[in-house]
């Protein structure tokens, strides 16, 4: 089911090649060119199992409107070579409408490509590059693919300059020469788009990936301590933060393991300095005991889980939304806490910042779910609004002796930090009385359990708990979370274009669940819960919370392949109209 082919529809261009072929660099330059052309873009990457030097693919989708997800198919593939191309076959769906540029020097295309009935154009990337001093085939491919995709030559040249700046002028010059050659090699009749006119002024856009955006959100919200243990695909967030924290007078500390890092956050927050870490599934597992301590001792911490394929070590380099259960329910004991999910790349900034703020307002742990597809994909798009004020801990009241864990109306107890005279207390993961002394009395236990639940439920979260699109009286409501939002919204748009009224609700705040607000948003519509995991974890969570109407259904599919708008639209159509027909 190829998507609409009009000029405003986004286009998907892939560049693939063996290790060292520079496919990813080509993708980065194309994305820069997209920005320079005033367009929006999303660049995903895929690599083989080699640690380094294995084959890789850059998948760019771009167009005049913001791009939030992978498309259903690939319009243009520039294959620098055919090294292990079958590894990418699922990720780069080719069909009769696709155009494939292949270098004849690397031999015949693999069977799968030939069988896909795609249009093949031979193009001498390497021979053309060989004509230039320091020329590289990938740059020829950038020129050719850019031309066919309608990117202005000036934007491509500008982009090469920006992307390769730190390699020196000679490299930039050689690249530009190759781009020109490639541009010339592209035949006008093969063009998928006419060249976009250069924009009068290039609008201010974000050029960022989700890991960087999450880091930026943390800094905006006042995080000044980060404890880090590297793990794919979260490491880049930590690496982005390290030098920038320092510029803001903060600290990043590389810990010996995740047990250490989560407890270091607790120490920092106890000291009054907002603290965050980023990890992925295995690290989250190791942090659960510490997160429980934060909940019980009411110390605000934020853990960003950049999800990858699970269970166990799973598929570390690929995306999946399968840590919802662990994030929502993984703590032993009754340990209510915050769980949020970023709804897009730029939204990583907003959601992380909000999580930091909430954690401090509510003195608890917040887990923020991101995933590999957000964290490691790079977008050119609208920045997240900088709305979040810096955080403050609740000032202790000054009547009577300081009771750190006293039961208050909103459930939030007064909090002090070291250095404040007369307000010392001992924070504790043992159950305690209002003053903080250990207690195993039923009344103390009940009061503290009630309080810790109440403070979360009583808080006014405002409208940010979800992003909602579509009419209130829709016939179907697609409920989703996190990175699936992009594909869900695009699916809904397609369905709407096909005349079906579809609403979407993408949850940013998973716990506590705004149950009534969700039920209201869904209204009388049928519900399809869309998520990228095997166990339909979101669907079951919403059932557990009695937040779904009768006859709700789940579209749950595990990674590593992204959920695509087409499959969502098809599932939605099938639900609305079980007797067949697709939008």
């Amino acid at each position, binding site marked *: 089911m190829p998507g609409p082919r009009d000029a405003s529809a986004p286009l998907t261009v892939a560049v693939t090649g063996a290790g060292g072929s520079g496919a990813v660099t080509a993708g980065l330059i194309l994305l*820069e060119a997209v920005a320079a052309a005033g367009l929006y873009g999303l660049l995903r990457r895929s690599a083989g199992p080699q640690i380094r030097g294995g084959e890789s693919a850059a998948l760019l989708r771009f167009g005049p409107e913001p791009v939030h997800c992978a498309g259903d198919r690939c319009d243009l593939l520039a294959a620098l070579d055919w090294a292990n191309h079958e590894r990418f076959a699922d990720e780069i769906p080719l069909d009769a409408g696709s155009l494939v540029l292949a270098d004849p020097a690397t031999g015949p295309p693999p069977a799968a490509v030939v069988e896909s009935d795609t249009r093949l154009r031979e193009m001498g990337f390497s021979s053309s590059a060989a004509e230039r001093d320091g020329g590289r085939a990938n740059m020829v491919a950038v020129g050719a693919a850019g031309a066919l995709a309608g990117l202005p030559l000036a934007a491509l040249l500008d982009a090469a300059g920006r992307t390769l700046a730190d390699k020196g002028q000679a490299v930039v010059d050689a690249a530009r020469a190759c781009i020109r050659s490639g541009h010339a090699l592209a035949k006008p009749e093969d063009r998928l788009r006419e060249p976009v006119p250069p924009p009068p002024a290039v609008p201010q856009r974000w050029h960022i990936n989700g890991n960087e955006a999450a880091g930026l959100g943390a800094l905006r919200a006042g995080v000044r301590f980060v404890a880090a243990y590297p793990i794919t695909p979260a490491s880049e967030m930590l690496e982005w933060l390290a030098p920038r924290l320092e510029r803001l007078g903060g600290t990043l500390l590389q810990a010996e393991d995740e047990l250490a890092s989560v*407890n270091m956050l*607790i120490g920092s927050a106890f000291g009054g300095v907002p603290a965050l870490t980023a990890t992925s599934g295995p690290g989250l597992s190791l942090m659960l005991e510490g997160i429980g301590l934060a909940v019980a001792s009411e110390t605000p911490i934020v853990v960003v889980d950049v999800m990858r394929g699970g269970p166990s070590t799973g598929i570390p380099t690929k995306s999946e939304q399968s840590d919802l259960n662990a994030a929502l329910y993984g703590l032993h004991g009754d340990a209510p806490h915050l769980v949020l999910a970023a709804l897009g790349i730029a939204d990583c900034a907003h959601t992380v910042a909000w999580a930091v703020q909430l954690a401090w307002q509510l003195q608890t742990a917040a887990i923020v779910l991101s995933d590999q597809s957000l964290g490691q994909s790079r977008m050119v798009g609208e920045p997240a609004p900088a709305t979040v004020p810096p955080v403050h801990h609740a000032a202790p009241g000054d009547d009577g002796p300081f009771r750190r864990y006293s039961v208050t109306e909103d459930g939030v107890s007064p909090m002090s930090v070291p250095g404040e005279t007369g307000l010392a207390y001992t924070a504790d993961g043992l159950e305690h009385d209002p003053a903080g002394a250990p207690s195993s009395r039923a009344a103390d236990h009940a009061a503290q359990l009630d309080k810790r639940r109440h403070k979360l439920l009583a808080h006014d979260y405002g409208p940010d708990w979800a992003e909602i699109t579509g009419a209130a009286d829709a016939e179907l409501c697609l409920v989703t979370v996190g990175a699936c939002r992009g594909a869900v919204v695009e699916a809904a748009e397609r369905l709407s274009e096909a005349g079906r009224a579809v609403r979407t609700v993408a949850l940013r705040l998973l716990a506590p669940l705004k149950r009534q607000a969700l039920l209201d948003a869904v209204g009388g519509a049928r519900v399809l819960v869309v998520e990228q995991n095997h166990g339909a974890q979101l669907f079951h969570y919403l059932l557990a919370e009695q937040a779904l109407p009768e006859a709700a259904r789940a579209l749950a599919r595990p990674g590593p392949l992204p959920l695509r708008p087409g499959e969502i639209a098809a599932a939605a159509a099938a639900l609305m109209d079980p007797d067949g027909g697709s939008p």
Partner: protein
Amino acid sequence: MTAGDADSAVQRHKASIPSLKAKDYKSDVKPVWCPGCGHFGVLAALTKTLAHLALPPERVAVVSGIGCSSRLPAYLAVHGFHGVHGRALPLATGLKAARPELTVIAAGGDGDGFSIGGNHFLHACRRNQDLTYIVMDNEVYGMTKGQASPTTQPDWCRSKLTPHGTGIRRFQPAAIALAAGASFIARGFAGDPNGLTRLLAAAIEHPGFAFVQVLSPCRTFRPEQQAWKQQVHASELGPTHDTAQAAELIQRDDGLSLGLLYEQRIPLYAAGVAADAADDLTAAERLAAIEAEHCR
């Protein structure tokens, strides 16, 4: 937030506060400890030390894990954190990294510190933050009713979990601390309050990671430790600064010698901590510059 200077945070606080007594550092929470437990001695020595150093209580934080020994913070009138089992050091590390001006003391037991917490012990020794770490070593898990700990003799058969003893070489706290790079290593005895107070004061004043192993008898599960009173003796090592020599001497040590075993002045941990920025931008301007990196 700055650190990295070789001066201990202690120096900056000492001066100008009205003199406090040891008892002013005690909270009114009643210890759960058994009568005669060595940990009472540590509590007493620590409050004396804080009074002696004239540290303002609001500038001191004591952080612990789980165990009888780890109950310590609740009995003090300073800022405290009773964390989870084995993680006192990371918690202290985070606190110190965030608030370098505080005097941060981590405390706990031999099980907490050397068994479940062993990895953090290694890496805290290496990291050389300006922290003090007090391990109340009773060679047993007191809190869980008497199992062998890493420092227990291999042939101690009184735990039902290891009815023939552990059969495992004892964990040697000082040797490990030295090999891991600790810059201050001392051994004290809970039954020697004055000696212990002196050691704790030196540890807190030491600019760097100071490890104090305190022999702290468990009256209930290791009654034979009452004999320590007779067995402990001053260390013959005397404080040494030569690591290789200390490594040899500590290996020959009997584990009951008291005193400062090793001390070295080395740079404090400062990685990731901002050197004073070369520009004179405001914080908001710096954040704006970071945001601008991602704008096209």
